[in-house]
């Protein structure tokens, strides 16, 4: 019937108009009184749920060891790490909340995307691999795996993963330690190490690390097989 056809037409037009509206509304998640909702200040740069991939600059924070994240939050707030946006953001927050933030992101288990393809020579990559896996005794450089775990996925509770991070971020952090822009609670073992690294070695390390796929399970190790070769203040509670 004509009338029902007209009704159908009106209904389909209404549906056509309403569906995109509903879809648009569905895209914006409803408000929830949760940590995830509170942490929208972080996910703008660190990716949804802190999952930032290795193609940008900002480091992934999801699934990092809780004490490591807490140490970094305190260091930004208290000026041991130098990045104005982070410092301003964290300035009004107390230790209890920073700990809750750290534990929130540490508890998130989110799959890692594949790594960025390496764009360096074979020599550079093999130098990178050598430094990471074996260190360089002539330069008194311990292997990265000696502290960051044999799988390089970090060690609970305070040593971070080196795999799954953006190359630019790794470069910037080692550079900042080398030039005294980044600090950890003393003794600042990473500062000692970075100061022994030549710029081309930093680049080789970052190139190799950023090109490695994330192993399964993508979690920090529970412990190290042997004691750390250096004393690191950052692996305990911050002062």
């Amino acid at each position, binding site marked *: 019937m004509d009338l029902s056809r007209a009704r159908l037409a009106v209904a389909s037009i209404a549906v056509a108009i309403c569906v995109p509206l509903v879809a648009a509304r569905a895209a914006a998640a409803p408000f929830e009184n949760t940590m995830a909702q*509170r942490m*929208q*200040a972080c996910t703008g740069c660190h990716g949804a749920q802190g999952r930032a991939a290795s193609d940008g600059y900002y480091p992934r924070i999801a699934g990092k060891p809780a004490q490591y994240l807490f140490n970094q939050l305190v260091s930004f707030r208290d000026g041991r790490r130098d990045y104005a946006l982070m410092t301003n953001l964290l300035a*009004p927050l107390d230790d*209890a*909340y920073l700990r809750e933030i750290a534990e929130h992101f540490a508890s998130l288990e989110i799959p890692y995307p594949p790594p960025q393809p390496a764009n360096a020579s074979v020599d550079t990559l093999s130098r990178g691999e050598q430094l990471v896996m074996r260190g360089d005794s002539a330069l008194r450089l311990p292997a990265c795996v000696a502290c960051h775990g044999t799988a390089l996925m970090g060690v609970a509770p305070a040593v971070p993963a080196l795999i799954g991070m953006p190359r630019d971020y790794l470069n910037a952090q080692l550079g900042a330690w080398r030039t005294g822009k980044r600090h950890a609670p003393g003794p600042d073992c990473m500062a000692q190490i970075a100061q022994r690294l030549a710029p081309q070695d930093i680049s080789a390390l970052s190139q190799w690390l950023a090109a490695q796929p994330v192993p399964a399970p993508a979690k920090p190790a529970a412990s190290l097989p042997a004691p750390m070769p250096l004393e690191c203040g950052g692996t305990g509670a911050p002062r």
Partner: protein
Amino acid sequence: MSRPNRWIGWIGGTLVLLITIALLLAALVAWLNVRGEEPVDAAPPRGATAEQIERGAYLARAANCMGCHTARGGTPYTGGRAVPTPFGDVYAPNLTPDAATGIGGWSDSQFWRALHHGRSRDGRLLYPAFPYPNYTHIERADADAIHAYLRSLAPVHQPNRPHELRFPFDQQAALAVWRALYFRAAPFEPNPARSAAWNRGAYLVEGLGHCNACHASRNVLGATSNPLDLAGGLIPVQNWYAPSLASPWEAGVAQWPAADVVALLKTGVAPRASVSGPMSEVVLGSTQHLNASDLDAMADYLRALPPGNAVAPVDPDPPYRPGTVGAKLYEQHCVACHGEQGEGVRGAYPALARNRAVLLDSTANLVHIVLEGGFAPSTPGNPRPFGMPPFATVLNDNEVAALLTFMRASWGNQAPPVSAVEVGRFRSTSR
């Protein structure tokens, strides 16, 4: 008398006159700098009672001494934080009782002179970045209690960092002239026509709390007009606008229930506002620690502030129109939290519709907030604040301007557009 002699006599006479005037002016300046001072008693302070120390700790919170006298991440009260001024950086000194680098050798009377007269132990004039134009109102017993508390801290050997001020502002003579022009030591004068609570509030707001160190405009030489002026001002160098505490169109609270004023000072959030930027520091370091009767007193005083010469904004004709670029950016970055009608989420995200902070003439705070994002301070009353991400690396000056212009002309808001030049100016001071 020959002609050359007459010239010499004339020049000599003028010189003598000028020198005399200069000397008289110098004497006047010198007198204005020390008048009203009693002789300083250098005898070391007698032992303090536990009660006095506890009271001093509380008063030091009310005065937020630690806020400036602690470097970021540093040991409390050891100084080293820069107070940026248009004339250079003034570094807050070590207030721990270390004899060599702190105030370990100070007498009560010398401490009092610093607060009340703005002069150091050795007689040097202090820079008013140390807000003695306000602290001059602190009562002697309160000054002694604060001193007793500071003496009870562990001494820390930390040499003071010299100020980095440009010539001539680094000269004591220049400071003497400034003080002669703008500073008078004066005790707090209670107003007998007002209640005890109002007077306590006045003492806290004008004296210890030194609210008008930010909430008042400064002249070209960095002076505020008087401690009663709370008409708002742009904080130099930091470029946050500390809104008027009197104007109903800025941050005046005459229309608020007293409980909301107390909540804002105690927790950092209230039904119609939350603190941000430098005020977060104030809540964090100072007002959240104040007791209920003092917060009530401050609310009493602030709610009774006369609106002064604040004028209502006039609706523009033709009305400001929200732009489409801004609307699109709002949809993309803001709507999820602040809502389609700028309604926000109560207790989490501020409403933007009819929000005084959005409509302020000065757009400094809006630019800071969009670029830097932020959390309200975490306080026992609001321990897990919601946060806003920084957009400094996401939006360029044109986009921030378009977005703010949209927000200021939507949902019943009618405030002037924001230019990219303004955004750029504030971005350059944002850190």
